[in-house]
């Protein structure tokens, strides 16, 4: 395995180039180009904010910030997993003709989404600054959250992309799975609204503590005591450790599934 990881390092430049390609190709030929990737979450935010502020009044202060700071990390996961699920099949021409570490393909999709994510965060920061949220106080925690989330995202992406080579239905199932997961994660609603009897299941969802921590950093930055600690009545770090362990486990399951299946990719595509 050490050799495999070292080899991956040798192909670092390929990962960088494929990531650039992903970003370039996605928006080449469209008039406002890269701004589409920013516009999409902003419009989603507008629609949901309208619905939940004026129709289904949840009574959440600054719903657009409440929602946006959970939507962006969610999109990182959802887009990465959805697109990479079909990525190996879509790049079949390459896999059949040239050798390179196969995991580069889903990884390049994920890294292009990470780039988009960081740019979207800048938009979020602008909103936070305008609305006078002191998010910079806990901002040092952000890299830790992103790293834990990436373990999870990479694990799931490697898993589904390799399975999809053998069973093409996987990509469609993944779409549904992600949609259900969206509603099972406190993104459009606060964790405090979840009935007590569901709470213990919700913490098994590794995205729940992650989203709550993102909110603690951004949304609850005005009064952090409202954040993660209060909702669980126990130290949030405990749930974070569970989330971390689940993410690592998912990462290794995904990695070993991928390694097990990659030998016959060129034949099965």
């Amino acid at each position, binding site marked *: 395995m050490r050799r495999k990881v070292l080899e991956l390092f*040798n*192909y670092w*430049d*390929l990962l*960088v*180039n*494929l990531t650039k*390609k992903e970003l*370039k*190709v996605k928006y*080449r*030929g469209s008039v406002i180009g890269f701004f589409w990737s920013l516009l999409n979450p902003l419009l989603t935010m507008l629609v949901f904010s309208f619905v939940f502020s004026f129709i289904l009044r949840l009574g959440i202060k600054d719903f657009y910030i409440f929602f946006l700071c959970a939507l962006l990390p969610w999109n990182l996961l959802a887009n990465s997993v959805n697109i990479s699920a079909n990525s190996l099949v879509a790049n079949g*021409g*390459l*896999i*059949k*003709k*040239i*050798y*390179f570490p196969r995991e580069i393909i889903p990884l390049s999709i994920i890294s292009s989404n990470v780039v988009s994510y960081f740019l979207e965060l800048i938009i979020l920061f602008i909103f936070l600054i305008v609305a006078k949220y002191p998010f910079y106080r806990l901002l040092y925690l952000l890299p830790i959250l992103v790293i834990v989330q990436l373990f999870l995202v990479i694990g799931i992406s490697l898993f589904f992309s390799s399975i999809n080579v*053998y*069973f*093409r*239905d*996987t990509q469609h*199932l993944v779409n549904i799975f992600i949609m259900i997961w969206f509603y099972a994660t406190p993104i459009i609603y606060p964790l405090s609204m979840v009935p007590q009897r569901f709470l213990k299941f919700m913490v098994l969802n590794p995205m729940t503590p992650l989203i709550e921590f993102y909110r603690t950093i951004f949304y609850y930055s005005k009064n952090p005591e409202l954040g993660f600690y209060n909702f669980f009545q126990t130290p949030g770090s405990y749930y974070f450790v569970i989330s971390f362990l689940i993410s690592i486990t998912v990462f290794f399951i995904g990695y070993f599934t991928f390694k097990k299946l990659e*030998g*016959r990719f*060129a*034949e099965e595509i």
Partner: protein
Amino acid sequence: MLFVRSEGKKVASVVNVIEVKNISKTFKIYHSKARNLKDLLLFRERSTYELFPALKDVSFSLGKGEMLGIIGQNGAGKSTLLKILARILQPDSGTVKIKGKVSALLELGAGFHPDLTGLENIYINGTILGLKRKQISENVDKIFEFSELEKFKDTPVKNYSSGMYMRLAFAVAVNVDPDIILVDEVLSVGDESFQRKCKNKFYDFKNKGKSIVFVSHDLNTVENLCDKVIYLDDGEIKDFGEPIDVISTYLADINRVEARRAEEEKSKDDGRRNRWGSGEIEIKDVKIVNSKGEEENIFSINHKMIVSIDYEAKHKINRPVFGISINRKTDGILVTGPNTRFDDFVIGSVEGKGNIKFIIDRIILLPGDYLLTVAVYDYLMINPFDHLNEMFEFKVIAGKEKEKYGLIKIPHKWEIK
């Protein structure tokens, strides 16, 4: 470099860059569409498939600076072997050891993205082939110079002509500076000048001491370039060694197969083509035989060919004229049409059964398919007794002969002062 352990010391023995031991590969050929979730949930294997053994227990090694040719008929496992060397496929069993950086030219331009410019694609394709960004930057000018595409640097490759596309792809692939190059029939694409450029590049590589594995149907190129040749047949190494020996083994096999095919065609064609004449002399049988007296349909240039004609005259006939003619099958051009009268080969009279032979000591026709007509006429050559028009077929193959323009190999020599 291969090291052989002896008493704890590492001793350099043979400088082998590729070492393949007992590799086998079997493909499943599915008859139905891809397995979907329904089959999976019902624990069903994909309904029907056949096992296709593409490689069976293949072993060989290649030294540094050597060029290896792989020949064989379609489906013999050549491309599978190359893909295993390129690490695209994994063998079911056996080991492959490779020392050095491999560049596989299995398909030019794999990984080109149509929407990106030539320059952007060079970077992507280069890194796919395992180069560092820095190495590519150093080589960009060289690549554009080799491909003669400087002007189209910033044009998306979807606007390239297919020739431009190939040139760019080849330029990237050969400027990767690999230790081992795997080539699969790329030379067969592109125009004459592009092919020449490719071949020159391979000579260059060879002179620089790089190892090359070359799959091709172009036996001349294989013979000229390669140091060793593998002849694959049905997934097995049938012959391995000096190019000239292996190629002749291969050609001999091809001839045998062709002969069988020609035989089948002949039996199908019989009676379809024209035959006319009074029947006073009947041609009972015509055999084309080789120098050993065996029936044969395929001849190498300069080999002996005999047309043996059995006839039967119903009654005594004076001064008959036997003749043959040879037409090229593709365009019907009459190559030659000798007869006994023109040759002053006088036949007084014939009666009953007999045999006459037309002997060509050295057939000087260039490679191709030919039709043979056999006929017997009266002395005036107006009234046919029996005329079997283009009812027989034979083939001339090149053997080791390289001449290929025109109809015949005219006996000749060159002088220079």
